[in-house]
């Protein structure tokens, strides 16, 4: 069984008395260690799908298994515990905590979520700082580093708990093309190094090609699955 198994997932949003179906029965299977991209125009359902996989939201229908767990049954606390153990997040706006240094931002999930011992925490954070090339900036605050560097810190923070899965919603949207490409390359490198599954959403055609598997979404439907070097219709 794959890391993520989605069977006919539906997601409805209620706006007043109107129900909007954001996902119309998506089914897919993602293996551990994959480097996946959800692609599609704005409003196609990419973020909705990532939110469901990341246990930030619940599907309205269908079945969604992440790391063998049926996430639709989670309560708020269970979902938080599951995310803390299994999922790392990378956000479009980096979402670093401004009052913490680069080091402390990366350390945060270990400290506040997993409560690991200080020695192990430091070692793990230093390894990741080295891996993302931010060792020199470890004592700087987020407002003292560039956008690309912030996203590197965010990648390190997402990986620090050694999660099975990292979800990145439009991770390069606020970066120039060169930096965006470097960030994607870094994510790929991290996948290779830590054997973590990376799923990112994007509508940037220039970086889409970097994904090994590409799911195309249109109007809430998964219209195609493309593998690097071939095509497999969903």
């Amino acid at each position, binding site marked *: 069984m794959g890391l993520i198994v989605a069977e006919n997932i539906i997601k409805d949003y209620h706006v007043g008395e109107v129900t909007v179906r954001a996902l119309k029965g998506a089914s897919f299977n993602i293996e551990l260690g994959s480097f996946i991209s959800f692609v599609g125009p704005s409003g196609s359902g990419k973020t909705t799908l990532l*939110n469901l996989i*990341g246990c*930030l*939201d619940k599907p309205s229908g269908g079945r969604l298994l992440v790391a063998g767990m049926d996430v639709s049954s989670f309560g*708020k*606390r269970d979902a*938080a*515990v*599951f*995310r*803390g*153990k299994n*999922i*790392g*997040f990378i*956000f479009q*706006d980096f*979402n670093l*905590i*401004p*009052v*913490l240094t680069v080091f402390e931002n990366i350390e*945060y*999930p270990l*400290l*506040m*979520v997993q409560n690991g011992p200080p020695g192990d925490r430091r070692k793990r954070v230093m390894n990741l700082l080295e891996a993302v090339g931010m060792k020199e900036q470890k004592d700087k605050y987020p407002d003292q580093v560039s956008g690309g560097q912030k996203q590197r810190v965010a990648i390190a*923070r997402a990986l620090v*708990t050694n999660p099975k899965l990292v979800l990145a919603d439009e991770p390069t949207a606020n970066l120039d093309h060169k930096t965006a490409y470097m960030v994607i390359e870094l994510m790929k490198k991290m996948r290779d190094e830590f054997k973590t599954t990376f799923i990112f959403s994007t509508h940037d055609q220039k970086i889409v090609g970097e994904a090994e598997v590409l799911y195309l979404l249109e109007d809430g439907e998964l219209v195609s699955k493309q593998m690097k070097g071939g095509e497999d219709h969903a």
Partner: protein
Amino acid sequence: MHNLFKIAIRNLMRYRRRTILTASLIAIGVIFVLVFVSVSGSFKNMIIGQITGSMLGDMEIHRKGYVASIDNLPLTLMMNPQQVEKAEGATNPIPEIEAYSPRIKFGGLFSNFTETTNIRLNGVYPDMEMKTLPLLTSRIIEGEKAIKKGEIIVPELLARGMKVNVGDMVVVIATNKDGSVNGKQLKVGGILQSATGPGGRDGYIHIEDAMEILRMEEQEISEIAISIHDFGKLRSVANSLNSDLSKYVNKQGKPVFEVHTWETLSPFYNIARMIDLMTLFIKIMLIAIVLISIMNVMIMAVYERIREIGTIAAIGTLPGKILSMFVIEGFSLGVLGAVVGNVIGLVIVHILDLAKISFDFGRQTGLVLSPTLQASDILVVSVIVIIVAVLGSLQPALKASKMEPITALRHV
């Protein structure tokens, strides 16, 4: 916990101006309360000290029914020698009692041979009275600071009105309990400063002179004034004395004695209670200041950090920890305000103490205010501020902890 404090303090430093303004507001409230508590407390304690140390004593034993008609100084409700012996006997086993003084109180006429007026007198054993009322000598503003046989200590206003001075001869005339009138010439031995409260304008003579004027064959006593070592034990000593004396009953089975603390004998007790009530209101105002300012700041803090809350919730921070983060922030702000307020408050109180501010109260002039703060005052105010700060931050913190990460992350 250390890390939660670190984050809380950094967040407070992040909005430095707002933190300083809020902490200042709390500090001003704390300063106001401390200065009020110290000044009003100093005034209250000084007046209570005057009343108990120079007039009433801390408590008094009377024959049952005496206090109900105390304004008439009834000679028919005095304690006979056997009753005095019993009352004095009850004071002996109570180690908290420092001293006691039996008194004969009576009203009479005071004459300087050309004019006559009314006077209220205390016939006392000088040594016992001075021991029971250690501040009495400080009220003797002219003459020798002693009550001697054959002499009278005249209240200041009466001496001024009757134009008598130390060394002058005067006559005191009184009616005894049988209705016969008697008089005695006495030398003015001293002039007694007036004081506010019951007995504040009474004169003093030796108890043997009082017995002679009242033609007492055996000594009868109007009251026994008592002073205790620790004023804080006033109630417990009074209760203990009352229970010891309650075993003495008359033929009708009713108690022979009654014990009253200064509180029931002096109208200043009502003023003291008003001061306590005002202090309570001032503390309630402080609570309101802290509650509103902390809530305001924390509501703003939560609103401004919604996306941050969404981020930390998304990466797995449990709601309880998010709640703690904001509560600790409010707590830290409360501690900051309390510490700054306490330090400045202590400095102001010290300056006021050094300034030796004087004031008049009733007939007493030139009373010097010496405001001081007890550790318990500071502790109570600090605890109030900190608890209210935590309570004030609880609602915004709960709101933050209950936020859905997905909604918070979408917040612009």
